């Protein structure tokens, strides 16, 4: 019999009941809650007269709507009354049901996918859900983690289970070592460029190979975070020393004998040598360039040394139409050099790239330089209050501020522009976020997805530039 994949192992360990009709009940170890996708779930519980099944499996924080300035004012600092109501509703629901919440003024507040790992609330081998598609982030710890809708948030609150059907297994193997200045973000954008935005639909993807093994936990989180942009709800990396080292000593991590027992189990969380995948995709990590997206889907991406594509050269009529539409929306010309794209704003943040390593990489590029005068704004939004504190301890805030970047408070911010941070119509933004969809960062806004280092390089030059040219 063939060995098991990591996904097979995680599935088997969380299987509560296999039903005759092919569906299965899967136990959920951890649910993360935020203000946007939970109010209707709590309301549903109330209407049905149900109680949460296991209170301590849930952790909540407001992140999507919170302002990134004036945070000492707490909820009163939220200018938009509709946003404020949503954050207040989360507070009320968590208070009523006794759910642990890092409220807006708590230093532990931050983006759900940053604070889970930071607190050790994300542990290897867990099943983790959240009403947010970027829950795949937690797969970096060898977790079975994916986004769910609000009805499922309610289902997990009420039953601690999800009704699931097993996905297929895909291995994305990135061979060789990455070049200097090439990050997890560039790797995942290159992967999505290769498999397409629906390439992973129906699959749980395991990311493996030398390039992935060589990444820090931050880099792995960035990659798993964007599995959903390749269509896969689940992205995973096997547990190794890097994983265990990261988890050690965090508030929710096990201690003493329990730690030893946990580590023993976590060491089994990798695909067996003879495991069979339904699909295998391989990339040569040594050839991956810093990436820049030019279109309105994350698959519309190329190396910084590349050009905007020419729709006339695309044979597939649906793809051609997609390119034409994207170039019109983005205000770009066929064959235009990527390095000729001029920026209006730069955003460094989001659940993809707002962790300490991301900020260090961006700071290293802007240190001793100034934000280009042609830019309207360049902002850095740390992923959590603790990331912010750590960055300030390392003096990164001063480097950013001296260079002319704004140093903000934690939240989702301009990744989806639910708060006050947004693009104006027609503005181009170098963004470390995850989606370049039309209107995502603001009505008519034009998003280019890049790594933190590439965003920093764009900030100091005003256009895209190969960050490696600034590193010498």
């Amino acid at each position: 019999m063939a060995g098991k994949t990591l996904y097979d192992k995680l599935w088997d360990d969380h299987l509560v009941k296999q039903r005759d009709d092919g569906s299965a009940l899967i136990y959920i170890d951890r649910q993360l809650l935020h203000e946007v996708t939970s109010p209707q779930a709590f309301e549903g519980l109330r209407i049905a007269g149900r109680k949460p099944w296991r209170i301590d499996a849930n952790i909540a924080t407001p992140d999507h709507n919170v302002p990134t300035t004036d945070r000492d004012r707490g909820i009163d600092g939220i200018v938009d009354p509709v946003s404020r109501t949503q954050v207040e509703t989360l507070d009320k629901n968590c208070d009523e049901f006794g759910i642990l919440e890092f409220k807006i003024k708590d230093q532990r507040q931050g983006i759900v996918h940053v604070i889970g790992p930071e607190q050790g609330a994300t542990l290897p081998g867990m099943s983790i859900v959240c009403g947010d598609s970027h829950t795949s982030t937690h797969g970096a710890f060898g977790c079975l983690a994916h986004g769910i809708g609000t009805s499922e948030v309610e289902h997990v609150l009420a039953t601690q289970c999800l009704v699931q059907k097993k996905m297929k297994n895909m291995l994305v193997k990135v061979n060789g070592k990455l070049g200097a200045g090439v990050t997890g973000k560039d790797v995942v954008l290159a992967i999505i460029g290769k498999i397409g935005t629906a390439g992973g639909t129906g699959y749980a993807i395991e990311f493996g190979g030398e390039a992935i093994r060589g990444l820090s936990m931050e880099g792995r989180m960035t990659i798993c975070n964007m599995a959903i942009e390749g269509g896969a709800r689940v992205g995973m990396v096997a547990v190794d020393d890097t994983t265990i080292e990261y988890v050690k000593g965090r508030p929710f991590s096990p201690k003493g004998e329990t730690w030893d027992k946990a580590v023993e189990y976590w060491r089994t969380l990798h695909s067996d040598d003879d495991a069979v995948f339904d699909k295998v995709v391989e990339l040569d990590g040594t050839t991956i360039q810093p990436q820049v997206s030019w279109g309105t889907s994350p698959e519309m991406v190329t190396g910084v040394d590349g050009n905007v594509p020419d729709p006339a050269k695309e044979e597939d009529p649906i793809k051609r139409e997609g390119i034409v539409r994207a170039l019109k929306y983005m205000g770009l010309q066929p064959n235009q050099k990527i390095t000729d794209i001029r920026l209006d704003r730069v955003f460094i943040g989001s659940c993809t790239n707002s962790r300490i390593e991301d900020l260090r990489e961006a700071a290293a590029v802007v240190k001793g330089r100034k934000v280009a005068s042609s830019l309207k704004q360049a902002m850095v939004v740390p992923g959590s209050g603790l990331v912010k504190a750590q960055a300030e301890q390392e003096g990164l805030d001063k480097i950013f501020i001296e260079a002319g970047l704004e140093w903000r408070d934690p939240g989702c911010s301009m990744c989806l522009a639910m708060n006050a941070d947004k693009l104006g119509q027609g503005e181009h933004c170098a963004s470390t976020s995850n989606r370049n969809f039309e209107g995502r960062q603001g009505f008519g806004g034009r998003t280019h997805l890049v790594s933190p280092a590439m965003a920093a390089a764009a900030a100091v030059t005003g256009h895209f530039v190969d960050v490696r040219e600034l590193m010498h």
Partner: protein
Amino acid sequence: MRAFTQHQGIVAPMDRSNVDTDMIIPKQFLKSIKRTGFGPNLFDELRYLDEGKPDQDCAGRPLNPDFVLNQDRYKNASVLLARANFGCGSSREHAPWALDDFGFRVIIAPSFADIFYNNCFKNGLLPIVLNEEVVDKLFKEAEANEGYQLTVDLEAKTVTTPSGESFGFDVDDFRRHCLLNGLDDIGVTLEDADTIRAYEEARRKTAPWLFNAGN
């Protein structure tokens, strides 16, 4: 949940692949704490020429005349015909809520994004996967014939055209069962409460670190 057995309705063809959930319902409308009222803002940025705001009366807003749902012949559509990878991106269930609130009951496409597909079933909305050739054919027929309707039978798992041509589709037994009977799947899961409890107790012994409430 509202049951779904059969449906016959006007087809609106939306000829665009990779329609993401940001496009279906933009973020400014996600601030609502309700499940209803999203219909007027369905496809907001495609449908209107101005920038939509929450709690705004959409009646006086300038419409984009090129957008399919603004054409008179599709105003009462309840079957959305779409292209590949419909519903990609964000997990927001506000997307099916908005489609439902507008009046859609069925969405037909060659493929759907996983989370969106799943969210539809929780809201009495039926997503149907038909192969590219069939979808192409339906696009041509819907565009060529005003008032074009399709009949969907979930019991029989068929889509039937006005000329009587019928196409079968696949759907998971569990999802079909819940939709046909309008079942609350939390209630169904709670029938297994003892099994869940037994699993939980066993895990508590073998993996106690999963039950650590932090410090």
